[in-house]
């Protein structure tokens, strides 16, 4: 039996394993490092960083929901300068592969962030989180507007040059995900991250008011997995050459395999780490085993396998 080639690539970035932390679900990386060496997973996707430091939204910031949770963090973080000064060097020191997630309120802010990242060494790729309200356009979320999505990616691409792979992270809360995906790829994205959280809300039946300080929040966890799998499948069907980082409710190796069969080249794990700090390691090990059991000799063979006609047909 030949050993499984577990590696994956996004643009020109190579990762020894297809398992990543989901943005915003691993803080600076230090906290998870208590439980396993960060270099053992595919890579760390950092919390979306903005130009300035932000204190985020008021508490309560979370509500558990059936097989899921809502969060309304509001991108609390130290800002790009403190991030580059403290967090990146730590991750580099840990020999973790790093995908930096950036977020902005204007097209210009994204480009500014990209400019600051251009010359930083030790970064494998940039994830562009476009699920932010666009302050230039009635607060509409960038990722919900095909034109705004393209402009953000185009700006980042121009700033960053041809070297660093760009992954556009899309929101599922749209009528036509495929056309948004096509748009950002045309604008220069090398890969796609699917899916960000789904907009949701919980009302506290005791106070009889929205439970979250921010009223609405993002739904994540196993509850949304079928939505995420559908999103990855739909996009991979029309853009089979574009690597997808699949996420949304992955909590086991089986779930990760499902996402890969749907068309993901890598998987990111968010909420599952909250319930289980070593989730990523278990998922990685289980996935390896499941691929091997099914006779795959490389991860790449399994990517999008569910799209092939089955023998029966």
């Amino acid at each position, binding site marked *: 039996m030949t050993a499984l080639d577990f590696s994956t690539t996004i643009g020109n970035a190579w990762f020894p394993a297809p398992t990543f932390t989901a943005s915003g679900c691993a803080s600076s990386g230090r906290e998870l490092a*208590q439980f396993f060496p960060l270099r053992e997973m595919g890579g760390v996707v950092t919390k979306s960083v903005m130009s300035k430091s932000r204190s985020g939204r*008021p508490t309560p910031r979370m509500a558990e929901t059936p097989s899921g949770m809502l969060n309304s*963090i509001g991108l609390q973080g130290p800002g790009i300068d403190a991030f580059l000064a403290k967090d990146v060097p730590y991750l580099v020191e840990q020999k973790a592969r790093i995908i930096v997630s950036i977020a902005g309120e204007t097209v210009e802010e994204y480009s500014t962030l990209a400019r600051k990242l251009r010359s930083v060494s030790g970064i494998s790729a940039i994830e562009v989180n476009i699920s932010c309200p666009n302050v230039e356009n009635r607060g509409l979320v960038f990722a919900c507007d095909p034109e705004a999505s393209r402009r953000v990616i185009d700006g980042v691409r121009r700033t960053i040059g041809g070297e660093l792979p760009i992954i556009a992270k899309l929101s599922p809360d749209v009528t036509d995900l495929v056309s948004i995906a096509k748009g950002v790829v045309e604008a220069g994205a090398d890969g796609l991250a699917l899916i960000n959280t789904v907009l949701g809300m919980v009302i506290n039946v005791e106070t009889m008011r929205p439970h979250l300080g921010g009223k609405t929040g993002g739904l994540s966890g196993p509850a949304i997995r079928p939505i995420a799998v559908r999103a990855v499948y739909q996009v991979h069907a029309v853009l089979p050459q574009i690597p997808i980082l699949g996420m949304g409710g992955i909590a086991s190796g089986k779930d990760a395999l499902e996402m890969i069969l749907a068309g993901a080249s890598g998987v990111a794990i968010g909420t599952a780490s909250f319930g289980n700090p070593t989730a990523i390691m278990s998922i990685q090990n289980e996935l390896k085993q499941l691929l091997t059991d099914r006779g795959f000799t490389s991860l790449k063979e399994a990517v999008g396998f569910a799209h092939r006609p089955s023998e029966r047909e």
Partner: protein
Amino acid sequence: MMQINKSAKQLLAPIVSNKRVGQYHQIIINIGDVAATCKPGNFVAISVGGDSSRMILRRAFAISRVSTSPTVGGTMELIVAAHGQGSKWLCAQGEGVVLDLVVPLGTSFGIPTEPVPVLLVGGGYGSAPLFGLAELLNSRGCRVDMLLGASTASKIYAPMEGKRAVNSMRIYTEDGSMGTAGRVTDPIAEIIKDLNVAVIYSCGPMPMLAAITKIADQFDVVHQCAVEESMACGVGICMTCVLPVANEDGSISNLRSCIDGPVMDGSRVQWSKVGQQL
């Protein structure tokens, strides 16, 4: 920024016993060697509901006490209120059931280097971690006085043995069903003056902690309080559990109560800004 408790471990640990005590359950869990690394104020995060549960997040509970015995090994005691589905599930688990834990988590109560008089104030099950703390303070020569409060008698947690390490223990209930009728905060100013209290340790609902902070600030007494915010992860990776805390320079940051807490300096917590946009 703080880092996660260096001793934190994920482990599978069996329940040694589960007994009803008033409105609470006293649950003792065998955590072996890990018991030696737990300090008063630390908490544990427990998976609830079993393999096919729709509850995907851990529940946090203060470690009430740890002990080591040659027969059972290291154990940890929790005092659990059956609140919602997760804590109800936990209260229903019997001897021998194996729990998935991450422990110890968070900061611990700071112990004075000198044997000074201290006051411990607990609200409801918030008294739980104070008994382990009292023993430690007592062993360091501190004079330890304790105030316990709750809305009603059955919500007072005050075990017999708990009195051993304290100089005095006074109980307050809002309905007067046990001890003095009134709030646990009523006598604090008096006690500070009478006993020359150097440090107040507190654990309980947020309004209680806020009220104690006011009194402590007035008398310039150190106030270490254990806070309780909704937590999704307990290990510092989700940013849901934040509290507004004043920095040295006067600016205010949202700090994670799971790793910068649960024990915090009461005078720095901006109680009036909790739940507000900073």
